């Protein structure tokens, strides 16, 4: 039944008037349809796996001149084959990735309510394979703060030139779809700032606190980010620090993680990517260094074919990844 619904969705989308790949289909001002999917093959000494990783549906539109909405449903991993164990897994359950309503009040104050992407840094804001430069995401993006927020975000610009933007966000309940988030939390508060120095240079930072539900901890975090984007080069870096209080034993800990990534656009279709990642997990006494070399080919921007090789300080984790992803 779900396959039939998905097929109908895709057929409706692709046959809609004015449909353009990567831009979705605007049925009317209140309804814009889209979606994306990605497939990945991962190979290492301990892994040999093919996944239809993301299958997602996107709906958004304007409810009035001030209100808009977005709904994103995603199944991940939708279908996977583990060649080492010779097993196949199918999970067609669609989760709420994003469900929110936006209210545009003024330059200074806009309000977003619902489940949304946590407005921190760069990587977290473009988390899907087709928009990324590499198939994999840096460790930093999984472990330092909840990627998704179910709550309230107040945001806007602080100056007339629209150079300084802010987000003030809070969550004071469980996630709308707890199965589908990297860190389960029922309390998350933070602020982030971004300064666009020019079209090619921007930097910013975030700070906040969250409480984890599993293995209860209170975690304070600070994060900084910088991006230089001047064709053909794009260089970006993000670093975050966690100050951890274990609520059961009262112990304290800390964690530091970050990455720096450089992309060289050979032309509009081909790019080379190099990334270095670092993670120092205090109490667990794990220090990870990861180097990633990648190549990206986009016959059109909304269709991405990528390959990469990861060198890990634990050589068992060295791996190759090839992916194909598309945004409808």
């Amino acid at each position, binding site marked *: 039944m779900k396959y039939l619904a998905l097929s109908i969705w895709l057929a409706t989308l692709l046959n809609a008037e004015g449909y353009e790949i*990567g*831009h979705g289909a605007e049925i009317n001002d209140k309804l*814009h349809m889209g979606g994306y999917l990605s497939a990945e093959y991962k190979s290492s000494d301990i892994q040999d796996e093919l996944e239809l990783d993301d299958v997602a549906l996107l709906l958004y539109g304007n409810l009035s001149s001030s209100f808009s909405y977005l709904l994103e449903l995603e199944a991940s991993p939708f279908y996977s084959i583990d060649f080492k164990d010779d097993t196949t897994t199918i999970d067609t359950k669609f989760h709420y990735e994003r469900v929110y309503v936006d209210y*545009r009040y003024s330059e200074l104050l806009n309000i977003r309510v619902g489940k949304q992407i946590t407005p921190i840094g760069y990587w977290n*804001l473009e988390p899907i394979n087709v928009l990324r430069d590499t198939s994999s995401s840096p460790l930093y993006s999984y472990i330092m703060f909840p990627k998704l927020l179910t709550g309230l975000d107040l945001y806007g610009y602080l100056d007339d*030139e*629209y150079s300084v933007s802010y987000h003030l966000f809070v969550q004071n309940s469980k996630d709308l779809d707890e199965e589908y988030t990297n860190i389960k939390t029922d309390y998350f508060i933070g602020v982030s700032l971004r300064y666009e120095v020019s079209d090619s240079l921007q930097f910013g930072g975030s700070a906040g606190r969250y409480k984890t539900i599993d293995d209860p901890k209170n975690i304070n975090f600070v994060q900084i980010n910088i991006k230089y984007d001047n064709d053909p080069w794009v260089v970006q870096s993000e670093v975050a620090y966690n100050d951890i209080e274990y609520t059961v034993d009262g112990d304290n800990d800390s964690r530091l993680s970050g990455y720096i990534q450089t992309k060289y656009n050979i032309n509009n279709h081909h790019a080379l990517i190099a990334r270095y990642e670092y993670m120092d997990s205090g109490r667990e006494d794990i220090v990870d260094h990861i180097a990633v070399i990648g190549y990206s080919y986009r016959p059109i*921007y909304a269709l991405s074919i990528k390959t990469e090789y990861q060198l890990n300080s634990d050589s068992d984790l060295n791996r190759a990844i090839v992916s194909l992803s598309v945004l409808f």
Partner: protein
Amino acid sequence: MSMKIIALLLLANIYLMATEYIVITSHRNTISTLSPKQIKDIFLMKRHFINGKKIIPVNASSTQALRKAFEESILKTDREKLNRYWIKKHFQGISPPIVQSSENSIKAFVKNVDGAVGYIPRSQLDNSLKVLYEF
């Protein structure tokens, strides 16, 4: 002397070429001028207000020379980069500005829709429209 005249004519020609197009709104709109950065932010759907007033941008269709001139002079980018920009915005749930297929329909939209801002050739200007910027 003749060299001075030629130089003056060249300068005048450059000025006329530089102000071939105009950014417009209706006289009902209280804003009187926009900077290139403000126009760029409005048409990239980053900015929805000017001095507290809600703004609705209207684009020329992508095949019009007018649109190409606007993208080169104001947005200062090419189609490929704009395409990438709007694909990223699609994921964020943000659509590009409304498109009108002719200069007359842009003028009609700007006259009739409160807060609308568009662009047309200078030759199309009439008394019902206010010039916010020339390019």
